[in-house]
């Protein structure tokens, strides 16, 4: 038992609180220092992490013993890189935000810090109830960040965002309680610890609806078609650094929880819905891609491209095959990194186009901004999963896993790869190439954004060169996470043959 993860978890909140008490101009630096300290801590952990060594840096204490809820944190291959992604993304976005002027800056940075704690908690929780606490806690700072510092029709945007995610959360909470209760053996004590829940069993009939409720919450968060109704308004209204985090990191919490919670604890239920979820995933890939290349607003191009990319990740998970799950997990990291970069670049572009984010008005920006264009190009190519990028390794593993069990769906999903090339190149050309629009100024990326974005791009390139750094560290736990659901599938197939 160590205290490391508790430090990582509460450091942002602590700096956020102290920043809120500091004078107006200095609070932001406290929060920035906090996010950088978390990043440093996490990087040390990344080096120290023992690949294949199971759950590490475990903290496990009783919390509410009457309800069987424990304060239990741990890092293994499943969440190591999710925690890393969170730390990197928050450091980069807090850095950019710290150099931007905000109304009520102390409150803004407090919310930003609180959000980091919530996300880290959701990723590190090893207790279902604790996970739900943090999962719902994420909503609070983002509600304020979108509603308080957004632009345009932010009331409408926050309303939709909250209705959607809150209904998902409530359903999930009900499902989680039911799971804990139903899993309790006769005469046993109720427990929400994931390790206990994995040992216990829930009847297939209950598993089915519990998985469905979890999936609803996670698909809303992801988002997947047709639960993405909140996306367009929210993406339009949210300010850039917050949106980068929302799209890059928050979208991963739900899909991550499939691997952490749903598949190991309710393998039969997961297996039951496999076909439906794969169809939803494939549909999201195609639908998201088609919409991505018919949008004019560059944020919405990225919004719908996220729907398509999350479709790939869900597809990989529900292929219920080792390579697919491994690819999905890797893709969560890759997609998170490129999305953060892309949204920060959107902010940079809008500054050079009199605030416009419309492809019809943009163009020709590359001329006096070769560094901006180069960074955008590398990130765009990675986003469309060009071979040689980490995203490609993620995607090829997802596709291979899907081909293995569901060849036809895999082939349909492959069309999404071609469509991704269309919308990403269209986005790149529409902003950087062609003739310059009237309100467009070709100016190089500013040092602040460059300093935030360059390390991320370097990581994206490095992951393309040596993806095995991630794959090696995540392999064992991913394989274990899907092992039972996979066997459930195998058993069903065998009985069908008989």
């Amino acid at each position, binding site marked *: 038992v160590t205290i490391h993860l508790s430090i990582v978890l509460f450091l942002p909140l602590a700096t956020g609180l102290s920043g809120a008490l500091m004078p107006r101009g200095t609070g932001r630096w406290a929060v920035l220092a906090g996010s950088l300290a978390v990043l440093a801590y996490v990087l040390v952990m990344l080096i120290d992490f023992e690949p294949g060594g199971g759950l590490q840096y475990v903290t496990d204490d009783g919390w509410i013993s009457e309800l069987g809820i424990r304060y239990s944190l741990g890092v293994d291959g499943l969440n190591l890189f999710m925690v890393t992604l969170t730390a990197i993304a928050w450091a980069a976005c807090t850095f950019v935000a710290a150099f931007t002027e905000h109304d009520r800056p102390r409150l803004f940075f407090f919310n930003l810090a609180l959000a980091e704690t919530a996300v880290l908690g959701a990723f590190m929780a090893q207790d279902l109830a604790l996970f739900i606490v943090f999962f719902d806690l994420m909503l609070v700072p983002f509600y304020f960040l979108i509603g308080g510092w957004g632009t345009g029709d932010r009331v409408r945007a926050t309303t939709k965002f909250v209705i959607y995610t809150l209904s998902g959360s409530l359903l999930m909470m009900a499902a989680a309680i039911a799971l804990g209760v139903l899993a309790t053996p006769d005469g046993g004590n109720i427990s929400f610890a994931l390790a206990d829940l994995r040992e216990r069993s829930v009847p297939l009939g209950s598993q089915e609806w519990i998985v469905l409720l979890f999936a609803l919450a996670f698909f809303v968060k992801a988002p997947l078609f047709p639960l993405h109704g909140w996306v*367009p308004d929210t993406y339009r209204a949210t300010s850039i650094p917050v949106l980068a985090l929302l799209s890059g990191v928050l979208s991963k919490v739900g899909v991550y929880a499939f691997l952490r919670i749903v598949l190991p604890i309710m393998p039969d239920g997961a297996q039951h819905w496999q076909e439906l979820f794969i169809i939803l995933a494939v549909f999201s890939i195609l639908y998201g891609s088609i919409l991505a290349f018919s949008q004019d607003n560059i944020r919405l191009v990225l919004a719908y491209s996220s729907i398509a990319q999350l479709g790939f990740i869900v597809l990989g998970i529900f292929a219920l095959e080792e390579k697919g799950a491994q690819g999905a997990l890797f893709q969560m990291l890759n997609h998170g990194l490129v999305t953060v970069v892309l949204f920060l670049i959107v902010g940079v572009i809008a500054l050079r186009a009199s605030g416009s984010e419309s492809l019809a008005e943009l163009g*020709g920006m590359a001329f006096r901004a070769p560094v901006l264009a180069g960074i955008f190009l590398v990130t765009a190519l990675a986003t*469309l999963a060009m071979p040689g990028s980490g995203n490609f390794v993620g995607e090829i593993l997802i596709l*291979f896993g899907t081909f293995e069990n569901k060849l036809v769906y895999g082939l349909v999903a492959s069309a999404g790869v071609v469509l991704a090339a269309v919308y990403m190149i269209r986005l790149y*050309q529409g902003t950087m190439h062609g003739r310059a629009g009237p309100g467009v100024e070709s100016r190089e990326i500013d040092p602040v954004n460059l300093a935030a974005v360059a390390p991320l791009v370097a990581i994206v390139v490095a992951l393309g060169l040596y993806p095995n750094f991630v794959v090696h560290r995540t392999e064992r736990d991913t394989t274990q996470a899907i092992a039972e659901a996979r066997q459930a599938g195998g058993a069903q197939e065998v009985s069908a043959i008989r």
Partner: protein
Amino acid sequence: LSATGYGWLVLAFPLAGMLVTSFGWRVLPGRMPGWIATSAIFLAFLSSIGALVDLQDHAEDDRQLVDSAWTYAATADFHIDMAILVDPLSVFMCLVVSGVSFLIHLYSVAYMESDGGYARYFAYLNYFVFSMLLLVLAANFVILIIGWAFVGAASYLLISFWYRRATAVHAGIKAFVINVIGDIALVVAAFLILDHVGSLDFLPVFEQAGDAFSTNDGTLVAACLLILVGAFAKSAQLPLHTWLPDAMEGPTPVSALIHAATMVTAGVYLIARTHPLFELAPTAADIGAAIGCATLLFAGTVALAVTDLKRVIAYSTISQIGYMVMGVSIAAYGAGLFHLMTHAFFKALLLMGAGSVIGAMAGIQDMDRMGGFRRAMPFTFVTFTVGALALAGFPLMSGFFSKDEIIAFELNRGGFYAVLGVLGYVGAFLTAFYSFRMVFRVFYGDPVPEAAELEGGHIAHGEPLNPMTGEPEDTDVGFPGPEHHIAERERPMKGAMGTLAVLAIVGGYIAIPGVDNVLEKFLEPTFADSRFADTHPSTGAEWIGLVVGGVISIVGIGLAWWVYIREPGTAMRLRERFPRVHTFLVNKWYFDELYDALFVRPAATAGAFSRRVIETDFVQGTIVGGATGIVRVGTSFARAIQTGYLRAYALLLLLGVAGMTLYFLLNSS
């Protein structure tokens, strides 16, 4: 240094050149980026020679060397190393690629001088060559696919290099997307192979393919057809050829690079590399040969009609690649690769000559506007004609030996293949005709004003116009540059073209039937496992073929002479007599229009439909609350939230969490 050590160096130099030119663009003065990039490729060429020398020291059955640098990705049965395979085939490709690319770099040093994106150009060019070398050196399917996609990305960057041109931007995305289609096909093929053979490394796959698959096994045929889709996307074969003519939007040396040494030959290389699979799936191989043949005829007819000088050469490339695809598909590997090499020489030369002429025309590419450059540009004229003779298969030129080698193999195998061979001769006739259509229309006849101006010692300058649309170019950005460079005045251009002209003449002498067969002997270790290794046409048959080919070539050239020099109005009369044929050919058989109707417009319609109907009515309407009742419930709920419930909830949640945290902290201590 071992052969594989040299192999890594072959990759390292262009990569280093790319990094230096792309990061040093601000500090490198004048022609410096060009010279750095050129030397990088020259060093890669020298390293290829090093690999060749070392490889020849190995015993003949020990000339397939694999070296792995690090584990790229490994999980479950998917195990990929960052590894290269150095064998005669990859070394041969490295030599051709780096050698010809070096000359194209050299040419570009001068040709691109006044372009505003000089350093960027050479960074892309180095990246392009690096990608191609990675492709040919890859030791497994995944690294091959990486090189494959890098080539596609590099070609995209270079095609839309003049990115303020709408046509260049459009051509770029077209090339990129068609290439991605090919990439995906390769990914699926790789899966089928991994699934059945259990490996993605070339040598084990080829060794075990015979055990894993029976001849013409359905899965293997599917995998091979997918490999063909990949190969055809890159090599611009039917029906995935439409990007290549548009790729002429890039600067002319780029066209030379794409068309001659790199990129389009990748498909031919891929078929040759995976030949053990194709020999187990003869159905797929036959389909490949048939499509190669169809492509060579189709592209030959289009080259008769289009008037854009660079596009004539583009269709000529498509057609010539058809020969190579036919060759490697019918197991005439040596012959196919021989033609790949000679074609690299004379096609690079022709495009460089075209670039020189376009320079003299101040950017105009239309042959209708050209004429009479013979006296104004003697060096370009002579070298271009040498290239055209080699392309036309004129006796004793390089194309003469290599093209007929492929046809001889086909006739030798008989049946279906003999039909392909005969059609190959038809294609040869078209080739000879359109090659000299270019020569006669550009260099003969009365000098056009630009040629006359050049004879007076001055290069023409016109207002820079987009050659495709006639729109004025956006010149404030500095590219394409204000100056025009022609071979007659630039030593680097002269040096590159002169070298290629010599190679276009003598390149064929490494494989004269009955005299020597250097190339096939060298490649033997790679193709030793071929079941057709011993089926070789007799020397006598080959010489008969050569004579027939020579006669066809001379007749074709003669006919072109008759049509364009002797009776200059003939072409016009034919056009008026058969207007429909002409329209059909000038519109390139309407492939672009077909794809537009089949794919582009339906996709755009689906997008608009989804955006307007599904998103607004279904997702926003039905799901947020479509029917009026639900809307009312929804809005009252929303109002309730706005009036404070939500904030109360959020606050409650926050307080709850804070309270619980406190409780826990107190409890645990």
